[in-house]
């Protein structure tokens, strides 16, 4: 694999207002975020807190009202080849075979698909031999594995995951979480995961960012202390449970600006 230079992802003062200024909805307000190269972070928060807006802005799919996003020393003003994205549900094109779906990003960029890499990734996620199947012939979990391959095939530096496993059943979801951690340990991508499942957020991430709504802001950052690789048994441990509850409590009772300052003083959880 090619040696990538260290590229941190920086978000500074990200503000996004929908509609006209006075009556508009402020989806994001002055969001600052730094994700180190190879770091895995999760963003959780109530619906409508702007986490999807933030992720789609990093993907270059939304324009910020003000603020800036940079990957290393490059400004992100639109879709960037070093940033891969996984969407809600698998988002495979039903008229293309699995392999053709995976090759879509190459086709769009007019690059030759890296067949060897695609094959080894398909094998890695347990889809060896399924390349010529159509999406509807695969289960939801298998479709989502294919979409992981699609996002990783062009070897991006940053992987954005927009609530990718929300539609899966609990068992398949656990299985996917395990797979994602394993692949992350092997490939060390910078990952930003958006999820409604706090357990998933904690299980996968180095840090969990909690967002509050209206205006969308990061209200707290929680370091996840558990060693890697993590096992699914971790989810049953007392420490894991406590951390999940702490985050849940924080989402339900967003800290006021005053208490935010005290949290900042206290540091992480």
């Amino acid at each position, binding site marked *: 694999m090619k040696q990538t230079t260290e590229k941190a992802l920086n978000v500074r003062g990200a503000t996004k207002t929908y509609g006209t200024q006075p009556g508009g909805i402020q989806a994001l307000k002055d969001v600052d975020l730094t994700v180190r190269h190879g770091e895995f972070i999760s963003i959780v928060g109530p619906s409508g807190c702007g986490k999807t807006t933030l992720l789609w802005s990093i993907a270059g799919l939304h324009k910020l009202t003000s603020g800036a996003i940079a990957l290393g020393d490059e400004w992100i003003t639109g879709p960037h080849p070093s940033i891969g994205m996984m969407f809600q*549900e698998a988002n495979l094109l039903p008229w293309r075979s699995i392999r053709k779906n995976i090759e*879509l990003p190459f086709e769009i960029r007019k690059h030759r698909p890296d067949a060897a890499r695609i094959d080894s990734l398909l094998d890695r996620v347990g889809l060896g031999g399924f390349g010529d199947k159509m999406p509807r012939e695969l289960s939801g979990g298998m479709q989502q594995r294919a979409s992981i391959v699609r996002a990783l095939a062009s070897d991006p530096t940053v992987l954005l995951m927009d609530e990718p496993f929300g539609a899966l059943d609990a068992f398949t979801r656990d299985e996917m979480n395990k797979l994602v951690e394993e692949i992350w340990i092997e490939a060390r991508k910078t990952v930003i995961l958006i999820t409604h499942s706090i357990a998933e957020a904690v299980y996968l991430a180095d840090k969990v960012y909690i967002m509050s709504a209206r205006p969308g802001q990061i209200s707290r950052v929680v370091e996840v202390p558990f060693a890697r690789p993590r096992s699914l048994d971790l989810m049953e441990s007392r420490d894991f449970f406590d951390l999940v509850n702490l985050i849940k409590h924080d989402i339900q009772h967003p800290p006021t600006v005053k208490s935010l300052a005290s949290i900042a003083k206290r540091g992480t959880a």
Partner: protein
Amino acid sequence: MNRSNNSAGFASPTGLASGLGGQGAREVIAIIAVAVMVIGGGEFLLRFFEVPQYILPTPSAIAAVFASAEMSTIGQHYAYTLIELFSGYAVGASIGLVLAAVITQFPFVEKVITPYILLLVTTPMLALVPLLILNFGFGYTPRIIAVALASGPMVMINAATGFRRVDTMKIALARSCGASTLQIFTKIRIPMAMPMVIVGLMIGAIFGMITAVGADMSGGGFGLGSRLTTYSSTLRMPEFFACILILAVTGITIYAFFFWLGKKLAGWES
């Protein structure tokens, strides 16, 4: 591929689709048996009750027409009708497809234009044939125009339904890979519209055929429709029914072709 995937290749308006899809040998035998019974039974009943040929000809009399000298005349006129159908359809369907693709990208234009398209869809273009003949004479021109007017709007209105299907997530996926507007169109919008485009092309072709025959009937002189008028006014019913049979087979061929095309290009949507 299992049978349920086979049978509903694309959004078919009728249950006939499943009838034409893949089926077992037993079903084929049953279909043939029914055909033999209907044709044989008809032959028997018409002979038994001595129904005169000019009221309803026997199947054997109709079949005999295909071996008779009259067949070359019928074939010649059938060719004229096919020329009208293909030319008119080529013009109408292309304009309809392009208009559908373009107009759906501009919601405002679409809102303004749609009522007129609906008007064209619901007005029987056959009614315009006498006027077209007044303007363009008795040749091919008025008939080709009528076919184009009948098929174009049908193609357009169905294709537009297809192009209007926007899946924000699939478009976002393409954009996240840096797709241009043109690439989004060719890689996402067109494949997504394909099932409805094919339905539109099929309905347009069938309406085109109906209109071509109808235009022949009022235009006179040539075309299979004009033969129908001639044969019925001279009470040559076996020939008349032979023409009807040719038209029915043409219609089924159009249907089968688009069914096959739908399975090939839009088989993913079941």
